[in-house]
């Protein structure tokens, strides 16, 4: 294919991406946090209208690889830090055969630290979190799907919704922008109370997803009278669902809400560039909480946490501690277990569940006519037996609960609350036992 050679040539001209990348500030924790049961991966997938053609998909991956040098990388150990080394092996396509968000092979392989999965109508990526965050991964996936559709013979115009693979990789796409935002005089981070933990029996090596498919129109109608954004509304429902699961609990219940910093600070990096804000409510000592009380306690909190000023404190802490000479020059073999212990003892206790909303995914109509919906799956964390991710496509939102237990308590509370509020819901799951 002559045009591809031209594409590759152009993509590699000019700025030449380095052979290796430092882990960005947010990515340094994942190699250390990873355990045998916590894979640190997430999945993003489109459910297509037709079955996926594997050969064309492989070709599409090969075609977009030169445009995404920071994705086709593998984790390698350095003396002081891990780093990401570019790999030439682009054979990342596999037919889905494991539970969602299955471990990605790291370090001792020459394959990239992500996989492109397909199964019947599903086409997606499962990625080790050190490579990129959800926002960047979605851009990668959209570019992949657009190339796949072009190879299938469709004409897909680029309206700026995905990356032009004819262009060269840009320097700013590979930059770790956290250090740029470091301000010495930023306020210190407030000490946070640890959250109630939703405890349920987990099964090692098991992982399941429960999807709720919801029309956007229904949600908007519910949010309007309450004066909430969609994320706030879902956060309130999720907090209420966790509360209903154990009304005896009087400890604060907190959600961790990740947010992309790209729209806030205006950077276009394709590395990790998101942070978390924790929101929650404390059940009253006497009596029971109502949904309305929860709504009031979280109103405006996400917006507050997502302001540039509020974000400078965690950035100062993260960048500051990574830049501390005692941490920087500590050999990796010692640093890794220390980071792991700190993450599992402290970091994970601050919230009961993570809830990520990627928003509505935009793309040209020529592309969206081949796609049914989007699915976003969080890999979950060791202390977190449940994670929730929301992705929107067209007029449909998909809320996905993931976890390594076979229980459906929280999703049941969540979805039945939605249906009782007049929202239409369709439920699907990866747990075949539970529906047959």
């Amino acid at each position, binding site marked *: 294919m002559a045009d591809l050679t031209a594409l590759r040539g152009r993509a590699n001209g000019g700025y030449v991406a380095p052979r290796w990348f430092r882990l960005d500030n947010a990515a340094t924790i994942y190699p250390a946090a990873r355990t045998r049961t916590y894979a640190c991966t997430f999945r993003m997938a489109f459910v297509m209208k037709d079955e996926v053609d594997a050969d064309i998909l492989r070709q599409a991956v090969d075609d977009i690889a030169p445009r995404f040098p920071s994705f086709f990388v593998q984790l390698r150990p350095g003396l002081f830090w891990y780093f990401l080394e570019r790999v030439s092996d682009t054979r990342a396509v596999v037919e889905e055969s494991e539970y969602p968000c299955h471990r990605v092979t790291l370090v001792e392989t020459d394959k990239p630290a992500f996989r492109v999965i397909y*199964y019947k109508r599903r086409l997606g990526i499962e990625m080790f979190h050190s490579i990129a965050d959800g926002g960047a991964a979605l851009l990668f996936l959209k570019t992949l799907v657009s190339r796949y559709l072009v190879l299938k013979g469709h004409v897909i115009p680029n309206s700026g919704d995905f990356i032009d693979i004819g262009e060269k990789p840009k320097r700013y796409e590979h930059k770790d922008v956290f250090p740029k935002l470091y301000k010495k005089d930023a306020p210190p981070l407030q000490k946070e109370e640890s959250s109630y933990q939703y405890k349920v029996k987990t099964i090692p090596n098991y992982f399941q997803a429960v999807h709720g498919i919801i029309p956007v129109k229904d949600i908007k109608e519910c949010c309007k009278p309450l004066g909430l954004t969609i994320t706030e509304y879902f956060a309130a429902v999720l907090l209420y669902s966790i509360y209903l699961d154990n009304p005896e609990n009087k400890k604060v219940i907190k959600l961790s809400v990740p947010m992309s910093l790209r729209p806030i600070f205006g950077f276009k990096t394709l590395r990790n560039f998101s942070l978390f804000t924790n929101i929650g409510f404390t059940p009253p000592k006497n009596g029971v909480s109502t949904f309305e009380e929860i709504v009031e306690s979280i109103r405006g909190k996400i917006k507050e946490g997502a302001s540039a000023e509020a974000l400078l404190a965690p950035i100062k802490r993260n960048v500051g501690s990574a830049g501390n000479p005692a941490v920087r020059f500590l050999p990796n073999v010692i640093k890794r277990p220390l980071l792991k212990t700190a993450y599992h003892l402290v970091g994970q206790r601050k919230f009961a569940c993570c809830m990520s909303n990627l928003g509505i995914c935009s793309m040209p109509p020529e592309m969206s006519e081949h796609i049914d919906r989007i699915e976003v799956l969080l890999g979950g964390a060791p202390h977190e037996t449940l994670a929730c991710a929301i992705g929107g496509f067209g007029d449909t939102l998909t809320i996905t609960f993931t976890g390594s237990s076979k229980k459906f308590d929280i999703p049941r509370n969540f979805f039945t609350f939605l249906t009782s509020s007049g929202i239409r819901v369709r439920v699907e799951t990866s747990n075949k036992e539970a529906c047959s």
Partner: protein
Amino acid sequence: MRCEKCKVDLGEEYKRCPLCASPAERSEPVIKGQRTAEYPDVVYKKNPPWYFGIYTAAALALSAIAVAADCAVNKNISNAAWVVLSLPCLWALVFRPIFIKKLYFGSYIIRDIICLSLIMLWYSKSRLGYFGPAIRFGIPLLHLAAALVIVAGIFAFPKRRVNAAEHLMVLGSSSFLLLIINMANGYGTHWCAAAAAVCFSAAAVLARVMSKEICDKLAARFNV
């Protein structure tokens, strides 16, 4: 299909509601135009046995027995120390490569050398009375052999040349260190010199052919 208890639509072929386990009812979905996105059948795999844990437990037990027996019979632990030392070496040399797949050849060789060097040092001191034979002869020969294997690997696996250069530099440096130790103790230095020469000259040839790649790799390994 639908669950009338939870009031949710279900996949077309669902027999039960996953949320409440009630039987699914055949009725029109309220959300039109959606079809089930199927998942594959996955066979549940239990955690593989934690080989390292099992091995460590067995090794500790064996070590304890050896120490106790040696104390009882010989009133010292020099024989038991042999057993204690050989067990981790046995793991690194024999068991780990069997159980842990995808092990890189070069890293494996470096680990082997460390283990075998320890064994040689111990043997040299306990059986021959001083470290000299190991430092002068045994360990440098080991380095030389490993270097030759890595050099052969350069031709067999062109893709892994940068890693080979890294390993040669590590081996070269430790051969050089041995050379200095031997000189300081007045032992013969020709085997160390030979090993260092082979390592450094092979690394130099590689560095000439692919200096940018090797510099990049070293910069990555030492990034702070």
